[in-house]
């Protein structure tokens, strides 16, 4: 099971774009069980495979201070077995059925997927329904998973300069909002989780009315519906808590945070709070990020990596989550690179766009890049099913996958200029730096 940084999937959400001439859609049946479970079914018999996905509307933002990392740790616990399928049996059954399994946690949701031969669909549905309500949480399993999560944290963050940068970024962008703490949590918080805490979390958030089930692939729709009713139908909904909707106050001054580490070269990111998923500005922001930093001919790459030879790598992207978003420009600098000089160089390029916008060709290029990425993301059954799920979970309607694409073509160079002015200002900037230091 892996810990999934929410930004990547949110970025993927921006992927479903279509240039106006592309018009891709596929038939999806959507319905709800009596217990509130939302179901999406998508038939695709191009291969004898099914992609079974169940995502719960709970992520790290729903945790409480002192228990960060619980959503992710609990995701690990979901593989530790139920009465019907104890861990060993669960592993053996999925392996012998040729089922690939994994899960991920983000700040907004937790997702579980099983990619199975189509003849094993009933097993997949049975397994997921069973662990939605019958998970066994015992101390020994929890102890092992706590150690595993701590290793995961060491790998992804403590030993990984980019991971450290991301964690520091979230803590600097957000002072109040729960996005400020890492999905993987802090070591001390993870260590203090008890089985009781897990069960409380489970009973609160793991229920049919807090989940979306999306199954795509080589399925018989009627048969699939009957399996879903058979296994999920009797699970009772729970009373869901009110979710906090803390509004992060606007930033009034530039913030900077430095991480000293024994690395070979400095790294720098410039970050700005931006649109949350579904907001109109998101489309223009995505295109702006592409113009600034996607590909060798993008403005910043061309200037900084190619012409000035000041960096080994650079990219920009816009990341929208459920309740907020951020825009990032990342630079892998050369060993003797100077961070302030780089920051100012990037700021000047942004100012150029704020004053004079971009060319029509640059805008069209960005739209074309987005269209291509969209098509690329839809080549597999699992890719398509996941894309449907992402839109359903974050926007409440899977069909945004098809609709949103056209919106990119309506963005103008004036829009690009407008969002650059609105979001990418010095006072809104959060700078994260990795500063090389020598070892002892």
């Amino acid at each position, binding site marked *: *099971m892996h810990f999934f940084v929410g930004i990547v999937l949110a970025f993927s959400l921006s992927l479903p774009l279509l240039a106006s001439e592309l018009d891709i859609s596929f038939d999806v049946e959507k319905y709800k069980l009596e217990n509130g479970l939302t179901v999406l079914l998508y038939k695709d018999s191009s*291969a*004898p495979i099914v992609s079974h996905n169940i995502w719960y509307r709970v992520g790290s933002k729903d945790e409480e201070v002192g228990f960060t990392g619980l959503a992710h740790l609990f995701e690990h616990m979901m593989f530790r077995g139920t009465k019907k399928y104890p861990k060993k049996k669960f592993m053996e059954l999925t*392996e012998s059925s040729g089922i690939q399994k994994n899960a991920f946690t983000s700040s907004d949701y937790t997702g579980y997927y099983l990619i199975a031969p189509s003849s094993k669909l009933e097993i997949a549905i049975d397994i997921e329904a069973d662990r939605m309500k019958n998970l066994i949480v015992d101390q020994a399993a929890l102890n*092992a*998973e706590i150690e595993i999560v701590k290793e995961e944290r*060491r*790998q992804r963050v403590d030993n990984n300069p980019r991971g450290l940068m991301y964690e520091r970024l979230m803590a600097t962008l957000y002072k109040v909002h729960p996005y400020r703490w890492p999905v993987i949590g802090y070591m001390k918080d993870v260590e203090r989780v008890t089985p009781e805490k897990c069960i409380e979390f489970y009973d609160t958030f793991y229920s049919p009315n807090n989940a979306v089930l999306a199954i795509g692939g080589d399925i018989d729709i009627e048969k699939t519906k009957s399996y879903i009713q058979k296994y999920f139908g009797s699970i009772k909904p729970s009373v869901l808590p009110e979710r906090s909707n803390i509004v992060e106050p606007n930033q009034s001054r530039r913030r900077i945070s430095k991480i000293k580490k024994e690395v070979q070269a400095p790294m720098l990111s410039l970050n700005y709070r931006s649109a949350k998923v579904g907001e109109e500005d998101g489309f223009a922001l995505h295109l702006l990020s592409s113009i600034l930093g996607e590909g060798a001919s993008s403005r910043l790459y061309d200037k900084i990596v*190619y012409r000035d030879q000041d960096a080994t790598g650079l990219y920009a992207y816009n990341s929208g989550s459920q309740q907020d978003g951020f825009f990032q420009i990342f630079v892998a600098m050369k060993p003797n690179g100077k961070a302030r000089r780089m920051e100012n160089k990037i700021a000047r390029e942004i100012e150029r766009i704020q004053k004079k916008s971009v060319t029509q060709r640059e805008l069209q290029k960005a739209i074309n890049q987005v269209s291509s990425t969209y*098509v690329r993301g839809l080549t597999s059954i699992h890719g398509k099913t996941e894309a449907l799920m992402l839109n359903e979970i974050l926007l409440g309607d899977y069909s945004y996958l098809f609709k949103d694409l056209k919106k990119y073509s309506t963005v103008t160079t004036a829009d690009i200029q407008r969002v650059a002015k609105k979001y990418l200002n010095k006072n809104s900037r959060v700078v994260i730096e990795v500063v090389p230091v020598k070892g002892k």
Partner: protein
Amino acid sequence: MRLLLFAIITLCLGACATSSTIPNNFKVPEYQEKTLSNGLKVLLFKDDRLPAFSMELMIMSGYANDSMAKSGMANMTASMLNKGAGKYSAQKLAEEIEFLGSKYGSSVGSESTNLKISGLSTNTDRMLELFSQILLQPRFQKKEFHRLRKRTIASIKKQLDSPSGFASKSFDEFVFGEHPYGRTAAGEIKDLNSMRVSDLKNYYQKYYSPKNSYLAVVGKFDPNIVSRLEESFGSWENKPVKNLNFSEAPKAKGIEIRLMAKEDLKQSQVRIGHVGPERKIKEYLELRVGLGILGSGLSGRLMEEIRSKRGLTYGIYSGVSFGKTSGKIVVRSSTRNEKVGELVGESIRQLELLVDQGVTSDEVKRSKAYFLGNFPRAIETPAKLAGNILTLRLWGIEDSYLNDYIKNINSISKSDVNRALRKYLDPKNLKIVVFGPSSVAEQLREIGVLKVENL
């Protein structure tokens, strides 16, 4: 035009307990093969479901051709192709490709160089034009070469900042020594510093030839695609290619451990293994099934004992990779510094158990089911099938490998697996790399002959 049809698999030999993971009428998708006038073999994988188009050229020469003192040559040559080609400067070429929303990239392996362009099928003509300029008219300008070399050297220096990548690279060097598989594609800084652009031109002349290559075309394309390919690539001059020969990689003697010491690491990376067999061994599938029992994905003995029971790691994986004349078998993991000894010790014990006591029938059944279950997914789309076919062509394996895959997996017995494991796994002679702080040395001295390299 040779049309290759894959037989419908209806037969089921031996124990068919796992055959229900794949329907009896499942067949490997079709593709076509054609040879252009200059000997370039073209593989066509049609897929009309999405407006996508891609071309991947595989040249069957890679960094194994970098002779000593010239490491990084194959990689630099491949990377230089799009830094100015035909009528386009480096940046103009990038812009033309990116304007289409297309992506172009190159990658270099030990025995292959792959160039790939992909994008929307509405831009096929343009992609053909740009791709053929990259392949046939690279400019190899000095300024661009110097620019690329500086960036490559800076990237090589940064390898130390990626613990997993650095550990894997160090392991390859340790296991293979001076054998070409011990190198990285990027090469060594001292060799890059002495490289000249004329070296790259020579490499390009020597190894880039249609007869040494396959071109996989995937996606939505018109019936006249072959004549357009002939127009775009037919002028590529054919010449004989002779890849370098090299002797066998040296075997490990006893348990040899190398600690690459860096003090600020909060977790140590571990690699355990040895030289493995070449791709063409007849026990290929038996070995894969057996190593799958050791560890595949989230399952296997290593994960069960070392992660699940002991909580020592986030992940422990066993892998085997194959080359033309040899390969490697490796167990890959990481753990907190104070547990390195335990993780290494237990991993070796698991390897010994596997060879000494063998596997159970149940384990074989499950591992076979895992491979069968993954099979449709591995060739789910024409693009995935293309990738698999190119790999088979590289190693000189017949297409019947895919045709007969299900039958062959089904027919594997427990004794087949045990035989393969005993033949190819050697837990008494291992090379181990640990990338961690020097304080872990004490834990390792008890396990094997240790050498510490302070970074």
